[in-house]
């Protein structure tokens, strides 16, 4: 059984920008251990000298002209999607 500690789960949540409740962390600790336990079987496969497959299209270097394409979406429309915008800027809490 894959061991994954409470601290590990807390660390993963932090890496994932998730602020979770204690209850949810408990559940995820169990689930993640079970999922890792299942995927661990891949270790049985001998992949020595095998290349990775990151994509399956066989396409390489797909070029397009360096031309401006009008998206027909205005800056105002995009800013209106933000939960908090002011004077053509998106407002966020202080960073530092």
């Amino acid at each position: 059984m894959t061991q994954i500690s409470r601290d590990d789960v807390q660390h993963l949540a932090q890496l994932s920008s998730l602020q979770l409740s204690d209850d949810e962390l408990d559940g995820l600790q169990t689930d993640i251990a079970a999922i890792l336990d299942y995927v661990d079987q891949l270790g049985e496969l001998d992949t020595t000298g095998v290349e990775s497959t990151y994509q399956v299209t066989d396409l390489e270097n797909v070029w397009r002209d360096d031309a401006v394409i009008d998206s027909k979406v205005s800056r105002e429309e995009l800013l209106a999607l933000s939960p908090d915008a002011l004077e053509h800027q998106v407002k966020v809490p202080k960073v530092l």
Partner: protein
Amino acid sequence: MSHIKTIIDNITSGASSARKEVERALEKATENEQYHALLSVTRERALQRANDIDARIARGEEAGALAGVPFVAKDNFLAFGAPTTAASKMLEKFETPIQSTAIEKLEAAGAICIGKANLDAFAHGGSTENSAFGPTKNAFDTTKVAGGSSGGSAVVTALDIVPFALGSDTGGSIRQPASFNGVVGVKPTYGTVSRYGVVAMASSTDTIGCFTKDSEDAELVMSIMAGRDIRDMTTLPDFFTPERVAKPHQKIGIVKEFMSDGVDSEVRQRVEEYIEKLRTAGHTVEEISMPIVKYALAMYYIIVPAEISSNLARYDGIRYGHRAEAKWSLAELYGRTRDEGFVTENKRRIMIGSYVLSSGYFDAYYLQAQKARTLLVNAYNELFESYDALIGPVSPTPAFGLGENTADPVKMYLADIMTVPPSLAGLPALSVPAGVTATGLPIGVQLIGKRKSDASLLALARSMEEK
């Protein structure tokens, strides 16, 4: 059941109109609300478009190959007229300023989107129970799941609300719900249809496809959606050309690993009956072995969460979507926003992704999975040197009960064990109806072909429908 071809004929002959078809679809949507297949209807826009199309037809203008045909899109397709929620609190109120390429192409052909279908939030799941707005019920038995993640799209097609619906399939999200609801489901070759404007899940296996009542309709919808799009650089140069007649005397392989005792006996029976029909039609069906396939689900649940953790990093509450209250810092805003905006399954996959990509684990998990994926792709390539297609079940069981698998994520993942392998290799695969269980639940058969053989697979499926 109304087929696309029938609707087009009726509109052309004047027996029906775009307006009548859209009104009928909207009425049926209201009658079937208890299934919770739709998250929204785009009534106003749909009726407006129907009027425009009827006016064009009245003036004798070209109105498109799908003029007046209503459809539903999974709610992870950006579409005008209603929010695009991805069945999440994160995007609950998100109104898109652009439409997906797939919908733009269908609209240009005269089709009319009448609503948005329920899904597992962000398409993470195999039952539509992970929707932040409640599950969709199976079209044949309301105590059973719709399948997922495109459960709503399958159910609106099965209930005959619309003749076709759009879905996305990353590891089985079209094929499995199609199987559970007795409709045709198409997951095309990776790169066939542009994903521009569709909420990204796992970019190396995400595909766009459709649900229809038969293979002929599926071919029509796919031929309109397919094609190169400068906005999705993974789209393949145009290759999809409908094939009227199936190639005779095909050699078809049945993967024996997917016909084991672990598979429901009625599912195996229906698949065997379909195989008999193929043989009667003059095709050869032989048992083959593909040992690597038993590792495919493990590869999938490393690679896909890794891509999810990356793709879902964009939901930060800053530029669009939900934003939580945060008093102190930006980190707190991110953390709370993502806690409130995602369902548990989203968090589970994001965290697994963070784990397998972490330094110290990357080689053992992510890299090993991508290498194993090469072995899987090679095994398929080798088989397709001798075989025209592969056949097997879509899922090990018919639709399971609502709530039956929700407590055990690994058990839920196992429902994808037969649909995931072709996804990892980018192959086209269909789910075609193959009868029902003794209790009346539909069962689907999966047909898999080599890359870009989509039209041949559809022709084969169609030739069997005529039997």
